[in-house]
């Protein structure tokens, strides 16, 4: 079992970050880890979380900030007072990166306090993820020194430790999404050293799976009978995976289950089949 305690899922919008992060949480939970799913950006879809039996931590900027101020100034009352001041409310509104940094800090604090805890972070899409990770560096420069800067440096020690934090960059097999994933990886490699790429919604994998299940009666699919858009996609994918030397278990099949919850289960099954034991590292 690998020892990372913070697993971060990012990638272009619409590539399936949320379903992938949820499936991975279920996977770790099934391995008896004390794991929680955190959605950084959106409000949680409670009925989905309920149905999946997904352990979650709900964090929000105001309570995270209050928690931080309380710890620093040793007073709940002052923390409440500060966060209720219209000035601070307005400040958080116009400087979104301040909130991002505080949330990230709160997440790391939780991990520091409970050594058994493992977190799966459903992070914002590429550009906004970079903003989130850039925020602490900005405020490190802005605040110059003092206890906030000490805390930021502590955050970075955890975040950039490849035994502690792992990044999954999700991509679909389309040109825009792939190029965005590559750029994102390049930017993130400046700071993070444990990054994996995952390819989602693969038609190729979908067809391969059909062929596998028909193996006994040796009737392989007749590819030329597929509609042209499908043939184009499949050819494109096989060329691409070959040229990028993608590891087979990092390619996830397209799921045609109708319900979101069922699609999460399909991804979960893939993790279970292909990500167990040592190959996860």
């Amino acid at each position: 079992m690998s020892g990372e305690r913070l697993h971060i899922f990012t990638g272009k919008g619409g590539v399936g970050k949320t379903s992938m992060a949820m499936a991975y949480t279920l996977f770790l939970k099934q391995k008896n880890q004390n794991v929680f799913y955190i959605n950084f950006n959106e409000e949680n879809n409670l009925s989905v979380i309920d149905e999946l039996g997904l352990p979650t931590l709900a964090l929000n900027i105001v309570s995270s900030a209050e928690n931080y101020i309380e710890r620093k100034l040793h007073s709940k009352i002052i923390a409440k007072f500060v966060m209720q001041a219209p000035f601070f409310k307005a400040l958080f509104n116009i400087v979104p990166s301040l909130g991002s940094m505080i949330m990230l800090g709160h997440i790391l604090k939780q991990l520091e306090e409970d050594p058994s805890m493992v977190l799966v972070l459903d992070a914002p899409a590429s550009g906004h993820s970079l903003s989130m990770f850039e925020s602490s560096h900005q405020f490190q420069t802005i605040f110059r020194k003092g206890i906030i800067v000490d805390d930021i440096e502590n955050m970075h020690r955890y975040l950039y430790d490849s035994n502690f934090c792992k990044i999954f960059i999700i991509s679909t097999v389309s040109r825009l999404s792939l190029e965005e994933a590559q750029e994102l990886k390049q930017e993130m490699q400046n700071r993070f050293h444990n990054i994996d790429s995952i390819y989602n919604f693969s038609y190729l994998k979908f067809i391969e799976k059909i062929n596998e299940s028909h193996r006994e009666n040796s009737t392989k699919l007749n590819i030329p009978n597929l509609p042209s858009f499908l043939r184009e996609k499949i050819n494109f994918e096989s060329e691409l995976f070959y040229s990028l030397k993608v590891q087979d278990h990092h390619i996830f099949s397209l799921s045609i289950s109708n319900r979101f919850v069922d699609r999460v289960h399909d991804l979960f099954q893939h993790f279970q089949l292909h990500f167990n034991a040592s190959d996860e590292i």
Partner: protein
Amino acid sequence: MISAKKVSLFCGTGGVGKTTLSAGYALSLTQKNLKVLLITIDPSKRLKQLLNLHEVNGVMSQVDTTFLNSQNQGELWAMCMESQTTLQKMAERTGKVSQFQNSILKNLTSKYSGLNEILSLIELNEKLKSEQFDCIILDTPPGKHFIDFLESAHKIHQFFDNSFIEIFDYLNQNATVSPSKLFFKKIVQSGLTKLLSYLEKVTAPEFVTEFIEAIAILYQSKNEFLAALVLGEKLKDAEFSNWFLVSSVEQDKIEEMLQLKEKATPFMHSDQYFLLNKCLAGKIEDWNPLEPELIALKASILKKEDEIEKFSKANFLNTIKIDEVVAIDFKLNEKKHEDLKVIAEQFLRL
């Protein structure tokens, strides 16, 4: 028929094709001999690769549209929004460039700082004032960041209004004085003393001085933020703007789309277009697979598309379906614009 308006906004959840469709729509307008500017606010800046832009961020550049092979007289210009450049130009307009060197402002507007949404209404307003373009098209960031963009002017106005009214009264009377410790003294007299003293406890003392200076500097451009508020109001005028809400059949984000629409309604007019992107039904109607898995695949694609179309017809006045364009080979550069061309043609046929 979609009539060209002064401003068009493309919005929606992530990965549905906002950037591609906004570029395709912009190209279709150049075919009507219009001079068009396309601005992207999203920090991931897909526009650059889509149109082969080489300019640095924050600068407009003309797009080579010869791949359209048409005789039209239209022009397409494009730029990626960058908050630092917007701020720099604001500084030039106040005539006090040196003050904008404040380190907090510089940091907060650096790459990936997250201030793009807040400053882009100002950028849009400037571009409108320049009267260089017939149409300006805005490719907005996904989901909640789109709401941030819509609320930006209001948020900044609120910040000035509630927090610093006393200080700014003082600043207005002493407009020639450069921001310095003098302002700090004034703040000390106001109710903010306590808050700032807490801040001083946990940061370097220079931070608080610089922080106040940063706000004082921004306040000098208060009128630009007020103008952005007025522009926000104008976007509600159906004569002035087109709102395109983009969704895609490959994602079932109906819930998210409804939430987005609900949150954005106060900022829009009701004459919106719902663009349903990446439609496949037309391409697989004649396909008759024999394998049960492929029969299920076909059924699932058709069902999804049907559901989302019903949803959009129930919730939006105008629904437009855009067919999926499979980029044939991304290694061949000359084919790179093939997808945009096809999308532009789809818009022209409407």
